[in-house]
Every structure is written in structure tokens, then in C-alpha cells.
């Protein structure tokens, strides 16, 4: 992913409607995203374009992800822990 596309993705990951997704997507983008395959990166970009109320239940585990490819990336998102020291 080129510089501009990555910057755009960063904006869309960290200016969400819900704080929960700002925290999870923002951290994932920095720590996990560079290590994903190109196909997985595309899937992540699709997830990041979803509405917060559609994406959050998947990440929070209150709804199941039906798309197999997306489910793999969602599982990675679910594993990510976001802790900020006080």
C-alpha cells in the first residue's frame, strides 16, 4: 500500500464514530497491518470502511462474522489488546 493510501486508511481508522474502534483499529494498523499479506490488507481496508455499528459487534464478539476471509482478520482484531497506562 502506498504512502497516500496508507495515510488515508490511518485517518479512517482513527476518526471513527466510536472510541472503541479508534483504539482497536488505530493500534492494529501500526502493529499488525504491516505484517499482513496483501490480500489480508485489502480485507482489513474493507472492514475499516464498514459502519461502526456493523463492525463493532463483530470485533466485540456479540455477532458472528459470516464472510470467511473477513472472519480471519476480525479474529486478529479481537485478539488485539489496547491498554493505555494512566
Amino acid at each position: 500500500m502506498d504512502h497516500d493510501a496508507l495515510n488515508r486508511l490511518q485517518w479512517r481508522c482513527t476518526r471513527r464514530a466510536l472510541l472503541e474502534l479508534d483504539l482497536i483499529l488505530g493500534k492494529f494498523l501500526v502493529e499488525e497491518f504491516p505484517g499482513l499479506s496483501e490480500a489480508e490488507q485489502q480485507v482489513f481496508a474493507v472492514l475499516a470502511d464498514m459502519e461502526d455499528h456493523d463492525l463493532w459487534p463483530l470485533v466485540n464478539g456479540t455477532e458472528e462474522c459470516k464472510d470467511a476471509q473477513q472472519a480471519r482478520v476480525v479474529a486478529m482484531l479481537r485478539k488485539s489488546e489496547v491498554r493505555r497506562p494512566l
Partner: protein
Amino acid sequence: MSIPVRKFDAVIVGAGGAGLRAAIQLSEAGLKTAVLSKVFPTRSHTVAAQGGVSASLGNSEQDHWHWHMYDTVKGSDWLGDQDAIEFMCKKAPEVVVELEHFGMPFDRTDEGKIYQRPFGGHMSNFGEKPVRRACAAADRTGHAMLHALYQRNVRANTQFFVEWMALDLIRDEDGQVLGVIALEMETGEVVAFHAKATIFATGGAGRIFYSSTNAFINTGDGLGMAARAGIPLEDMEFWQFHPTGVAGAGVLITEGVRGEGGILRNSSGERFMERYAPNAKDLASRDVVSRAMVTEINEGRGCGPNKDFVLLDITHLDPATIMKRLPGIREISIQFAGIDPIKAPIPVVPTCHYQMGGIPTNYKGQVIADASGAPVTGFYAAGECACASVHGANRLGTNSLLDLLVFGKSSGDTVIEDMASMPKEHKPLPTNFADRTLARLSRLENQTNGASVNDTRLAMQRTMQNHCGVFRFQDKLEEGVQKILEIEKQVAITEIKDKSKVWNTARVEALELDNLIEVAKATMVCANARKESRGAHVRDDAPDTAEFPNGRNDKEWHKHTLWQRDGNKLSYKPVNMTPLSVETIALKTRSY
């Protein structure tokens, strides 16, 4: 240097509930309307509102707008303006029914009416007993509202400028507002939006605090722009805190957790709420619980290596109950605190939630810059960025979504009314209108040996949290004023490494910090000055006494604060105690 200019009848900054509601009025009246937003409209923070929108529809039991008005005045601790509160509560049924007609999927009763549920502080018959007044769409009220409003705007041909950030107001030497200067993120281009009317609906600035439930987008852009343009900010000392945000992350743990039996404990495992509220205990009102938590932390009974949080314990509950009644809470705790709440308690702190103050307006949405009451020509504001003031010192739940609808609509109506008497042609822009903005951008572009944006923002957030949190102390506030003024000097020399034009998020974050610091200064200075406790502003040196119940001192402090950026000057204006059609709701002690 000149920049491209685009002309519109009206420009609205912000596409959350208030901005979208205002845009409907303008576009449906045939005005050429531009709406600028940092994100796609349905990504606005209004989406996070779950509880509902209040209106005295009386669908489930008898209700009246006058009772709603009484509750709102009382909730505001008598700091709300009674003309604006009457206007809002009277208009509530109308705007909610309109929203229904726009396609809002409200929950229904068996008879097909809008279902209403009770909500804290909403009572019947002037405080007698709880009333069902909140209209909701499951737990997605804000989300559903934004979708309904956005679709209506698409139908009305509102022109959206998505992923644009407004940078500054354009004001001429007469003080008239002539539009905004904005940055398109995709290209890095800076453009003037020349308009006869400018409505700010930019939301709150909860990100000034370290622990905040607000999404990252809430950087107080409208407040920063207004302050730089010489408009005062009103009642900025009043911020509502939620008792249980996950320590550090700020993510909200719903009150339902305590409702299901969750217990707050200090470092020795004591259920400390038994000492502060022997009857309600952990279910006491938000402000009581928050103050108790801060007292425990301040007196050395906090938990963790820095003793700076308390624990919310649900380990005694049956895991099956937790999974069934509190879906998602276990995951939130694991993801944001690294704690499985079935096995160990969740670290929590009182967390900033809502901004009661803002850009001073009247109930028509016109911005009022001084005590004379005269509006700033061409400038309007609505929603959390504005201070009408309907929330006064403390907001009632579900009145925030109502505020967006009522004042979004009324600001739109006022623009239409005011425009009828304006000349057909746009008033010319001053020749130097973009100079200050371009100088600010150029400074950022060329800064060397400057301060890191992230470090400076973090220093500001920690200072606000430690010196101006939910429970305030004279010495901490005084020290906080000095600290925040030092941090302001760092904001003035922020440096970015990435100088690219396209999607330069580092530049945008630096520009957001320029806005946050204005709100932080206003908050700290106003809080330091107000030597009483009222609503959400609670000071250790203004305790509950016989002379001043709840620490409130009406004789000296029943007035609105106005903060001016220039010299951090403060002035005060009276609270409007004259409703539009009913009798004044006289001052009395607020107790529930």
C-alpha cells in the same frame, strides 16, 4: 497569497445530528448549502448516543413539556437559560415526530406508537415520580438518527464536502462572519467557503482530557475557530463525567453493570460506596459515585502501581449471567484493560463524557458574543459545540439528542429568516482574509526543533485530568492554569516530519491540537475562577453547608462565565430566568 473561493448561501461545519438537521432546513428552503465534515456524515460521534431522545409525547403515560422543562432547569442546577429550555422542551414532540416522518425506526408500543422508557432525572408533575419520556431505536438511537437525517439531506440535494477540515472563520472588520477557510485532506488544498451564513455544528471537545469516552474526532474544532476569531466561550468549566470508564482507555462500562450487581472496591477490597451512599450504594447518581471514587484515589486508597484507579468487581456474579445480561462487557474488559472480569475486577476511573459549555448562542441559534445580546451577523451554532444554554451546569440524559434536533432546526430557520433581509449579493471578503490561516499553516510547515504533537497533546490531556477532573481543588487548579499556559507555548511550536500534501494526517492532528488547547485553557481558567460547586463543577473548597447547600452560592455565582482567548479574560452574564410563556422556575436546592 490568494486561495480559491467557493460561494454558497450557507456553509455548515460538522455533519453530526445538529449539522444534518440544520442542513435539511436550508436545503429544503432552496438555499445552496455546503456541509463540511472531517468524516463521512454517518461516522460522526452522534452515532455513539444510545439512550434515546426525550420528548413529552405522553405515549405511555401522562406527560407535559412544562414538566420536562422543570426537570431540565433542575438538572442544569438552575444555570440553564429558561427561555431556551422552554423552547427546547416545547418543540421536542414536534422534532421527534418529524424525525419519525424522515424514516427514523423508533421502537414501538403494541398500538404502534413510539415506545418511551424512563431515564434518570425525567419526572412527571414537577419532580414527583419517574416518567417514560425517552424515545429510542434499540441501543442505536444516534446511529439510526444520523441515517434518517443523512438520507433526507441526500433527497434535498445538500452538497457534502467529506473529509474536509475547517481551519478558521472568516470575519471582516465589522465583525460579520463571511464563511470559513477549509482544508481538503485528499489534496491538501486550502479553499475559502464564502457564505452569507455559517453554522457551526462541530460537536464537543472531550479529547482535552486523558480519560474520555469521546471518540478521537471530538477535538473542539468549532470552539478553537470561534476563540481565534474573538468569539468568547461560555461556561467551559462544566463537563459531565461518567463514573466507570476503563482506566486508561476511557471506554465506557455501562451503568447496567452496577445494575446487575457490580461493586466498586478500593485497594483494600472495601466496598467504599457503603460509606458515601448507605442506601443506594453503588447505584447512587453519577456525580455522587464519581466524587466518591476520586476521594478514594486522592486519599491513597486507589489501586495499581500508581494508586490511580478503583475496581469494578463482578467476579461474584454467575458467568452465565454476565454473558447473558451484559453482552460485550467481558470482551471490552479483556480488550481495553487486559482483565477477564469473570476472574478479576475491572480497573475504572471517572471519565469525561459531555461538554455543557460552548459557543454562546440564543435559542434561535444566533451566536451572541457579549452581554448586550446582539447577534454576530452571519454566525450560528448548534449542538454540543454551542451553549444555548439548555444544559447549564449538568445535562440530563437524552437531552443531548434533543438539543441537536431542536437547535439544528431552529438555527436553520433563523438563517432563512435573517437571509430575507440580507442583500442578494455576498458581502465582499476582506483582501487579507486568509493571511492568518496561511501564516499558521506556513509556521507548521517550516517549524524546526519544535515540539512533538503527540507528546504535547498527552501533556495537555494529563494536565486536564489531574488538575481539572471530576472533583476540583483550589491548589491543583491554580497550578493547572500555569501548566496549561506552559503547554500552550509548546502547541505554538509543534513540528511535523511529514510534509506531503495528500492525506497528511500529521498536519491535521497538529491543527486539531491548535483547537484543543483553546478549549483546555478556557476550561482550566473558568474552573479556577468559579469559587462554588454547581452541577458538574464540584470543588473541595465549596462543600455542602447550611448556608450553601451542595456548595452552590447563588448570590455570587448564579451567572454564566464568558472566556475570551485574548488575555484569558473572564466576564459574566446573567442567567435568563424569564421563560417565553410560563412563570420562572425559581431557584431552589437541587436534590433527588
